[in-house]
Structures are given as structure tokens and as C-alpha cells.
């Protein structure tokens, strides 16, 4: 253990702002990346679902009259 106490650990020898800023932003960007990736997967799924719905709509409209 390089630090005597927990508050020492937080203080980071006077560099706390920079060290925790660096770690914090890094963590945030990784979290952002993960969220982006997972939500992408969900988006693709819902896109496919939407397309299936759309195909149903097309079929329903196929034999109507007076449609351009």
C-alpha cells in the first residue's frame, strides 16, 4: 500500500484533481462506448421488427382501389 490512509489515497499526493479527472473521463468514455454498442444492437432489432410490420402494411394495401 502506497498510501497511509484513505484520505491520502483520495488526495493523490496533491494531484487528486488531475488523476481523478483522468480516470473519471476515461471511465465515462468507456461507459459511453458500451452504451452506444449495446443500444446499437437494440436499434437493429427494432429496425427489423419495424420492417416486418411495414411489410404487413404493404400487403394489406396491395389490392385496394384508387391508389396511385
Amino acid at each position: 500500500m502506497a498510501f497511509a490512509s484513505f484520505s491520502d489515497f483520495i488526495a493523490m499526493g496533491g494531484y487528486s484533481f488531475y488523476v481523478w479527472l483522468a480516470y473519471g473521463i476515461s471511465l465515462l468514455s468507456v461507459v459511453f462506448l458500451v452504451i452506444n454498442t449495446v443500444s446499437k444492437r437494440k436499434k437493429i432489432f427494432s429496425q427489423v421488427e419495424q420492417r416486418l410490420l411495414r411489410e404487413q402494411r404493404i400487403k394489406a394495401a396491395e389490392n385496394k382501389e384508387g391508389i396511385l
Partner: protein
Amino acid sequence: MLQCKNLTCVREERILFNNLSFTLSAGEILHVEGPNGVGKTSLFRLLVGLSSPYAGEINWQQQSIMSDRESYYKTMLYIGHKSGIKPELTALENLQFYHDLYNPKVEFDAWEVLMLVGLVGYENVPTAQLSAGQQRRVALARMWFSDCKLWILDEPFTAIDKKGVKVIEDLLIQHAKKGGMVVLTTHQDLSIPTEFYKKLILHKPTTGEQYV
């Protein structure tokens, strides 16, 4: 009532037509005909006030169209060679915009209209990704929710398939029956019964008329 008196159109020092006069009353369809380059599009741009004639005047309800543009545009729908559809927006968004800005008082369901013009299933695709005919349909869809009396359509049937042409013709007849007016050009034969429309045939100016 749309009234043109002694219109003369000059483009780049070339006279396109000279002393053209005609009147269009409620319930009439006017089919402007003529070979390529005779000046149909130029005439239409005069009629909607995008350019101004070399001589002559254009009146809408007895008033020059330039004198009160806004109230003229409230009753006039123009669909030209270029469609005026934003390619990055979907068909739905495009129609919604045209409705809200041009005919906000008409009740309308964009989905319904898109179904009527045969774009079911393409509502949420950016229009850039539609085929030539489908893009044209988005532009023409405005006719389905327009409360304008006067429609000015420059080659509306371009890229539209046969079934589509039939449907549009029916719509035009219906519009005329409700007291609307239509001015259109097309190089195809109209299959509208002849009593419903009259023709205006543009000719190239003869040698004598070429200069005024």
C-alpha cells in the same frame, strides 16, 4: 378566374410566344401542348410569378398576381419539373412540412395520403432512397391534401407508371368538378374525356412574329 392578356415571353433575346391570351374559369382543365422548347415551362413560371413577363398581364380574380403574392399563393399549387422534396427527409416529414406551411387548415393524415399515392411501407425511408417514380409521387401527394383552387402542373406524369397516371387523371377530374382549375402540360395523351378539358396549343413564333 385566371386571366392572361397579351403575354409576351422573351428568353435571352428570343421570343417564345407573343400576344398570348386565355382565360380559365372555375371547373376547367387546360392542357397546354406544344413541342419541346416551345415555352410551356416558361409560361408556367410566368403564371406562378417566379418570373415576370416581357409584356402583358396575368390576373387572378381580376387582380394582378404580383400585387398580392401571398393571397395568390394561398390559392395556387405549383408542381414543376423539380419536385421540391428534400431528399434527406422521409416522405412523411416532407408532406407534414408542406401541409403545415401551405395548407395548414386542411385536416389531413399523412399516413393516409401516403397510402393513397402508393407509398405504403416507404413512409420512413429518406426520399433520396426512393426510385424516380416514387420520388415524383411524394411531390404529387400534395394534390391530395391541397385546398388550393388553382393547380399548375408541369409534366406531372413524368416517371409515373400507367396505373398511377390513371389515378392522377381521376383526381384532376374530381378537382375540376369541385370547381377547381387545373393547368397542366404533358407529352402523353390524356385519357380524360374531352368534354372535361380544353387545349392550348403553343406554336413556334412564325418568322413575322419573331421580333416585336
